[in-house]
């Protein structure tokens, strides 16, 4: 008997309609208190600065960033960004509400959106604090009383600029300088919203904090800035979620995340990104990791039309460590160019990368990465593993890793695999009574398990739901 022959008869493909993204696609009426006119000029930047009541240094910083933006070129690699026309994007949209610290005060339509995304419920059951951003402004921020007493600061970025000027000015866009690339410069010019977290020395925040970013307004951009400082010996788990309804024209997300993990500190930064499939997600995330500190990234990337996202750890402290665990899932019309970068810049540092990707229905996943071990990083170790799964023959999966080793006393290894779901495995599961579709879904969930197990239970469930949603009817 030849099981594979038998099974091949049942593997005809079925065409499917656009996936119903249900709750993520809820569109509220495009109502706002203020929307800046489209385009990018010094006048527009000055207007944003006035609207945001910036201090003088921040206004000057924005204008400098605009200058840099105008000088830098678009990337000459990666996905085609030619459809992005900044003249068509409104960079600042203020919703019709102020910052609230009670959900009751949040306007009904905005509250309903966050309710459906499960944010207030999660806050009650499993989070120590929540921030919620709607378009360009944070509309809700709150944190458990005991953390406030311990000196933990968790607030929106604008409040931080005003109330903690020294701390902010010392760290703001120092980890991610505006010269890094064009979209960081753009972010520096038009940033709005985002979260600021400071965990004082030795404080362990056991329950995660979460910020959720929602972009509702069409033809607009979201440019939130997240700045987290985990001081010496402290620890934190921070979760970031993002989504948006789908419009016909492109939206832009060019956020920036700067993380400072001081000596002996620990930070886990988890992201479930589910932007709508008209979104260009050109986000930048970077962490500077101190002596014996540990930085962990957990990342699930499901949404966006185009994503270019490469979180980066700079291991500056002796004995510092980083781990990256990430999955990308690209469906029809999506080009997810994601990956990870690490610079080993001190002795005895280590990095572990576990990246996975799934492509189907013509989607494209690219894993792009850098591991650089500098001359001074003696006795460092790096282990990278990436696996790609193709669910049909119209999709694309590329792996483009760069390994730059500048000294001899290192242990470096990199492994990558590309392949389809094994017919034998499907046959085995089908012989145990599963339908082919269920068997494939089970294999995909198993493939994603090393990532989902790193998430808090509710988010792992959300990720599994997203996988099911993405797979629904798409294989057969």
């Amino acid at each position, binding site marked *: 008997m030849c099981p594979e022959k038998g099974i091949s008869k049942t593997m005809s493909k079925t065409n499917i309609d656009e996936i119903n993204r249900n709750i993520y696609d809820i569109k509220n009426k495009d109502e706002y208190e203020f929307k800046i006119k489209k385009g990018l000029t010094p006048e527009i930047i000055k207007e944003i600065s006035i609207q945001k009541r910036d201090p003088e240094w921040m206004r000057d910083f924005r204008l400098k960033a605009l200058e840099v933006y105008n000088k830098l070129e678009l990337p*000459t690699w990666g996905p085609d960004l030619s459809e992005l026309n900044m003249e068509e994007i409104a960079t600042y949209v203020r919703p019709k509400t102020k910052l609230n610290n009670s959900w009751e005060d949040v306007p009904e339509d905005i509250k309903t959106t966050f309710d459906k995304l499960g944010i207030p419920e999660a806050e009650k059951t499993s989070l120590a604090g929540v921030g919620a951003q709607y378009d360009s402004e944070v509309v809700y921020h709150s944190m458990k009383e005991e953390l406030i007493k311990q000196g933990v600061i968790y607030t929106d970025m604008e409040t931080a600029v005003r109330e903690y000027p020294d701390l902010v000015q010392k760290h703001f866009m120092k980890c991610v300088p505006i010269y890094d690339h064009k979209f960081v410069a753009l972010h520096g010019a038009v940033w709005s919203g985002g979260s600021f977290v400071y965990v004082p020395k030795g404080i362990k925040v056991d329950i995660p904090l979460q910020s959720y970013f929602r972009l509702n307004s069409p033809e607009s951009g979201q440019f939130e800035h997240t700045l987290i400082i985990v001081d010496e010996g402290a620890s934190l788990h921070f979760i970031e979620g993002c989504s948006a309804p789908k419009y016909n024209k492109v939206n832009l997300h060019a956020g920036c995340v700067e993380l400072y993990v001081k000596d002996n500190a620990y930070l886990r930064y988890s992201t479930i990104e589910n932007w709508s499939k008209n979104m260009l997600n050109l986000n930048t995330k970077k962490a500077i990791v101190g002596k014996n500190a540990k930085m962990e990234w957990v990342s699930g990337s499901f949404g966006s039309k185009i994503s270019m996202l490469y979180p980066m750890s700079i291991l500056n402290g002796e004995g510092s460590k980083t781990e990256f665990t990430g999955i990308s899932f690209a469906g029809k019309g999506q080009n997810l160019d994601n990956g990870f970068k690490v610079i080993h810049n001190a002795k005895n540092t280590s990095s572990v990368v576990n990246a996975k990707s799934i492509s189907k229905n013509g989607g494209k996943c690219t894993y792009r990465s850098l591991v650089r071990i500098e001359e001074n990083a*003696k006795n460092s170790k790096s282990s990278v593993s990436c696996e790609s799964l193709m669910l049909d023959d119209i999709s694309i*999966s590329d792996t*483009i890793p760069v*390994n730059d*080793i500048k000294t001899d006393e290192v242990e470096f290894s990199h492994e990558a695999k590309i392949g389809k779901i094994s017919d034998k495995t499907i046959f085995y599961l089908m012989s145990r009574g599963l339908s082919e579709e269920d068997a494939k879904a089970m294999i995909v969930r198993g493939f994603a398990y090393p990532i989902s197990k790193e998430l808090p239970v509710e988010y792992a469930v959300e990720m599994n739901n997203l996988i099911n949603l993405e797979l629904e009817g798409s294989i057969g």
Partner: protein
Amino acid sequence: MQTLKLNETPIRTCRNFNINNIKLENIEIPNTINKFNNIKITGDISLISNNTSDIKLTYGIEEGLIKQIKEYQNAKIAINCNGKLQCTHEKLDIDFNLDEDNSTLLENLEIIANENSKSTIILKYKSEKDLEFWHNGVIRVNAKKNSEINIILVNLLNIKSNNFMSIENNIEGNAKVKYTIIDFGGKNSITNYYSNIIGENADNKINTIYLGKENQLFDLNYIGELRGKKSNIDIEVQGALTDKAKKHFKGTIDFKKGCKKATGNENEACMLLSDTAKSLALPMLLCSEEDVEGNHSSSAGKIGEKELFYIMSRGFELKEAMKLIVRAKFNKIIENIDNEELKEEISNEIDKRLD
């Protein structure tokens, strides 16, 4: 003196990763090209003619350097492995020796492996004196159905010379093309290798060893495009670097649409023998076909202390122990060469270069 930008990868990545291409500064491109007389050919010389076709490359090392060969080639060799007699294994050894009177070699080598032919061709590049030589070559291989061709390419040039090599293969159904590349010479040794693996069951194997010392730079850009059903490519690269030597390895396995059940494996390992040697690698897997299997692995690091300790406890000095380990790692690839004299020569070169 010129600055050359060469060996572009088929797909670009971030510019500041410094791997999309290689920039060579202060390169003196020879403008007087004399006849190259120092070629020694042994074996089935009846296979040779000078009827090469026009050079048209899909990739190639750089436009200007290819143009230099087109216009000024001083070694033009066409090899026609005819396979008229079944089971005949045709063999050919070609030695290019660069010296004071033959200091520039621009060779255009075209090999046609006809249907059912079986052949081994050894190409050796050597420079006797410690002068600055220039080697810029194109090798084109057209492997017809059911042919088998084994090419052994040995670069033993000195470390003051420039070595540029553009290789292109077209591999038809059931054909097997195997390369063993020994890359030791050249201040700059830059190789662009491309295989169009077009036929069903076509197979391409590349086994490379490189050995770098002082300020040597190796830039290896290997590209395998799999188009044929059940086609295969295996790339194995083993290297050792000492002093301030530097290696860039760019390996691309590209599964093109339609290459169902194709397989591709890429393994790259670099032994760093000093703390100033540098290894940069970009092992790419590109995939537009579902039913394929692709793997790559890449590693870098120094020789294991346990291995060294073991050998040294048997009475060897550190340098000798290192040589022994490098030779042992390289042996797996050198064993592919069915020529005892050449194997011996390569082993001696390893010892000499690591002294």
